[in-house]
């Protein structure tokens, strides 16, 4: 059986040899190339375009500007955006025009020849500036935009949300110890190794787009809407995708390439340079979080209050759900009977912020878990003991009232604590202070709709089809393992194919730690349905009751207790040529778990009705802090996460280790920075520092906990995001443990750590 084993990824060989095809590896005869014109202003009205100079250059085939747009603006939640700027530009780097030509050099020359007249407007570049009285407004027509959520609308406020349980004010009066602080987090860039790109081509009146995307269905919807074609005439296919982390859902460049391909009737390739990708895609939301937590002398936490403001950048994108999720995660994985969190998402004249591994939780958990350690220090309690005392347990409810039947918070904390205690101590190093830090975290796994199709082939093998794009996290292999396991087949007998909006059953997207949980559920149920249909055939063929049948390893169905059996191949042939017809099954569903409880919590605008199942984890890290320079080095880490049931344990470990290291970057080095004119200054990998191997500890121990989820046929839960969430707070707590100082601003650069150490005295 393949569940719980770790066969190599199905595509690992192709990736190792360089044969795997990513979008930039695709070529077409007569293919055109694109150059982009971007805004030099953080905020300006577009007065006019002059594209004649560009069009007169030999080899130039088409130009797209805002003057070509009439139709509705795009946006999954607030329709405030269009593929190229329309009417105004709202950040430096925003795409204003695109030109396509026979080669990249000609396209670049033509882009330089496009003239755009602007009327510069005053800009807002931070949460504080966006909220200031009389601040310039980015979207004057906000009230008239089509929206799927309510909330926001005054000035630059695009969304407001709050959740409250118990009586926070009264509870704080009963606390013996209260801590309060403000925490700031930066814009982090996804920095998938493969920049966003696409290839669009026109055939038979239909436009096919090969895209770096986390959802062919969402990409198809966006393109169709923006270029005003019925979805029947837009097809999206995902080649191999070189990482996503939330940054490759449905980029505006897909619509631009599709528009240009339609205009020229030629294949058009548009692959962003690394600098363009930094400038025009999206980031994690910068956040400013004020938080207050109070407890009794014995360590019972009675109350928490939080105010979370997030910087959404120039366009809404996924700001409302990110804010709402940050609010929901702000109570942490604790039983706190009185909790309140409020927040706003603001428009500013910077790159849009959107979904990114953790989705608001890294910000909230950095504040919350820092504060738990501050509280422990003030109480004179061990930080792990304080966490264990207040940790959620099975049967508790999450903030907002959703019941949580499966919860391993205490075990996760105990496991990382015990593993660290059992490990031989690393030798101390002169000039460095050693610290140990912990964090606890919850997250969700679920959301929205998905489906799977299975079909028995004539040779007894199985064709599995889902809309779940494998962006490198390994879902293709996991889903094949789930399918093969239910049929007793080796994984080689189950095929899966690249996602194609023409053939793949709907999937919302690869996001929200949902693929193994959601699409995995769909695959398991569809496979079991197909197995039952195979049983019906086998029962007739073997002249017995279906209830007496069993799957035999290797592709046959037999009578329990008897050697008699029929092969999948015979069943398939019978179905095709004698009775019943082709054996297929499909299963689709939308997340059907429990909803928030309005009787328990006062909820204002959450942007979703239910989220997914809750998962829990804990981290322990050891750091060395150089007291002379403030440099922080993570020496060892233990990360425990609940996978429900690990389908492929090696892939689970890879997710945990990779997320943790992305979290090291968030904690210590990564920040997109803008200058006073709104120009992004961190536009290369030399300016924007992600961890290299020497920035990571040689030992990152993944501890996989398995508390099976009762709603999943094989018990699995998603594990994609939580490992990033716990990294920064555990590192912050380890720094505080080493030095007695806390920076409260991410990233915790040497300068900030030194400042905090100096301020300590």
């Amino acid at each position: 059986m393949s569940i719980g084993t770790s066969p190599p990824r199905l595509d690992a060989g192709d990736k190792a040899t360089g044969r795997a095809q990513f979008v930039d590896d695709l070529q077409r005869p007569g293919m055109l190339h694109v150059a982009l014109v971007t805004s030099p202003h953080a905020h300006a009205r577009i007065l006019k375009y002059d594209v004649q100079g560009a069009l007169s250059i030999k080899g130039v085939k088409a130009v797209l500007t805002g003057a070509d747009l009439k139709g509705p603006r795009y946006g999954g939640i607030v329709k405030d955006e269009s593929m190229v700027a329309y009417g105004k530009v709202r950040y430096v780097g925003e795409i204003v025009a695109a030109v396509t030509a026979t080669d990249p050099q000609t396209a670049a020359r033509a882009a330089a020849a496009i003239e755009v007249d602007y009327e510069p407007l005053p800009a807002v570049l931070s949460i504080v500036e966006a909220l200031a009285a009389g601040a310039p407004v980015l979207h004057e027509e906000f009230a008239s935009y089509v929206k799927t959520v309510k909330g926001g609308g005054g000035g630059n406020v695009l969304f407001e949300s709050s959740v409250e349980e118990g009586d926070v004010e009264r509870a704080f009066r009963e606390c013996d110890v209260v801590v309060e602080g403000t925490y700031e987090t930066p814009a982090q860039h996804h920095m998938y190794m493969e920049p966003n790109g696409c290839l669009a081509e026109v055939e038979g009146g239909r436009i096919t787009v090969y895209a770096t995307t986390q959802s062919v269905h969402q990409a198809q919807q966006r393109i169709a809407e923006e270029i005003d074609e019925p979805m029947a005439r837009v097809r999206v296919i995902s080649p191999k995708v070189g990482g996503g982390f939330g940054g490759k859902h449905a980029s505006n460049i897909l619509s631009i390439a599709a528009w240009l391909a339609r205009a020229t009737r030629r294949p058009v390739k548009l692959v962003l340079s690394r600098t363009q990708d930094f400038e025009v895609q999206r980031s994690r939301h910068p956040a400013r979080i004020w938080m207050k937590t109070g407890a009794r002398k014995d360590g019972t936490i009675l109350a928490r209050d939080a105010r979370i403001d997030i910087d959404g950048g120039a366009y809404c994108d996924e700001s409302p759900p990110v804010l709402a999720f940050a609010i929901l995660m702000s109570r942490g994985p604790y039983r706190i009977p009185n909790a309140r969190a409020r927040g706003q998402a603001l428009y500013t004249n910077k790159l849009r912020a959107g979904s990114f591994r953790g989705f608001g939780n890294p910000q909230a958990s950095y504040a919350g878990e820092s504060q738990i350690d501050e509280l422990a220090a003030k109480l004179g309690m061990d930080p792990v003991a304080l966490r264990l005392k207040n940790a959620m347990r099975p049967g508790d409810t999450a903030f907002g009232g959703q019941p949580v039947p499966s919860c391993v918070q205490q075990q996760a904390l105990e496991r990382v604590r015990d593993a660290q205690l059992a490990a031989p101590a690393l030798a101390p190093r002169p000039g460095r202070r050693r610290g140990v830090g912990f964090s606890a975290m919850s997250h969700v796994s679920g959301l929205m709709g998905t489906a799977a199709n299975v079909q028995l082939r004539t040779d007894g093998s199985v064709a599995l089809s889902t809309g779940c794009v494998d962006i490198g996290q390994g879902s293709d292999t996991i889903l094949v393992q789930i399918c093969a396991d239910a049929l007793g087949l080796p994984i080689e007998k189950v095929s899966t194919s690249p996602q194609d909006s023409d053939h793949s059953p709907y999937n919302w997207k690869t996001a929200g730690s949902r693929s193994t949980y959601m699409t995995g559920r769909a695959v398991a149920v569809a496979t079991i349905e197909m197995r039952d249909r195979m049983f019906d055939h086998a029962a007739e063929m073997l002249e017995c009751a279906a209830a007496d049948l069993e799957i035999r390893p290797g592709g046959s169905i037999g009578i329990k207790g008897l050697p008699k059996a029929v092969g999948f191949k015979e069943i398939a042939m019978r179905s095709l040529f004698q009775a019943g017809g082709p054996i297929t099954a499909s299963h689709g569903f939308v997340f059907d778990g429990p909803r928030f409880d309005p009787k328990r919590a006062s909820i204002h605008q959450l942007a979703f009705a239910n989220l997914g199942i809750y998962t829990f984890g804990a981290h322990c890290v050891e750091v060395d802090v150089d007291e002379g320079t403030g440099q922080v080095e993570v020496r060892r880490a233990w990360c425990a996460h609940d996978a429900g049931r690990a389908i492929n344990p090696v892939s689970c470990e890879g997710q945990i280790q990779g997320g943790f290291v992305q979290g090291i970057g968030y904690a210590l080095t990564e920040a997109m920075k803008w200058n006073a004119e709104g120009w992004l200054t961190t536009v290369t990998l030399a300016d924007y520092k992600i961890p290299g191997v020497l920035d990571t500890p040689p030992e990152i121990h993944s501890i996989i906990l398995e508390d099976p989820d009762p709603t999943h046929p094989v018990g699995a839960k998603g594990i994609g995001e939580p490992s990033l969430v716990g990294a920064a707070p555990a590192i912050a707590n380890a720094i505080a443990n080493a030095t007695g100082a806390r920076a409260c601003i991410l990233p915790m650069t040497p300068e900030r750590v030194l400042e905090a150490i100096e301020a300590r005295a």
Partner: protein
Amino acid sequence: MLLNVNGEERDLAATPAATLLEALRAGGLTGSKRGCNHGVCGACTVLLDGKLARSCLALAVDVGERPVVTVEGVSESGLSEVQKALVETGAIQCGFCTPGFVMALTELFLRRAAPARDEIRAALSGNLCRCSGYVKIVEAAEKLAGGKR
């Protein structure tokens, strides 16, 4: 432009401004990736005259007669032992950085039969990976080195 790539003379249609990476990719050798084009990420790494080189920083016209080995060159007779180790250890996730890591490790194992962990980490320090946290990449190299001791 004639270049000696993977042991054979190849006529690559490259302009004088083309980088080695552009020339290789235009010639159909798309295993070397353009991750940053600034010489930082290492996804375009090739062997130039037996030494590691960022193909995005080398002009194709400067290569001359020096032999170039790309990821395709080390894969000609199936998976190399470095590639096998990466595949079997679960060190490959999105795979975009993988060709660069394959080349860095190939060069390391040409130089050192059984490198220690610190040598492996140093040898990989010029390649960025955003998925794996590097743990399993190092583990794969350690396993391979362990088998040679």
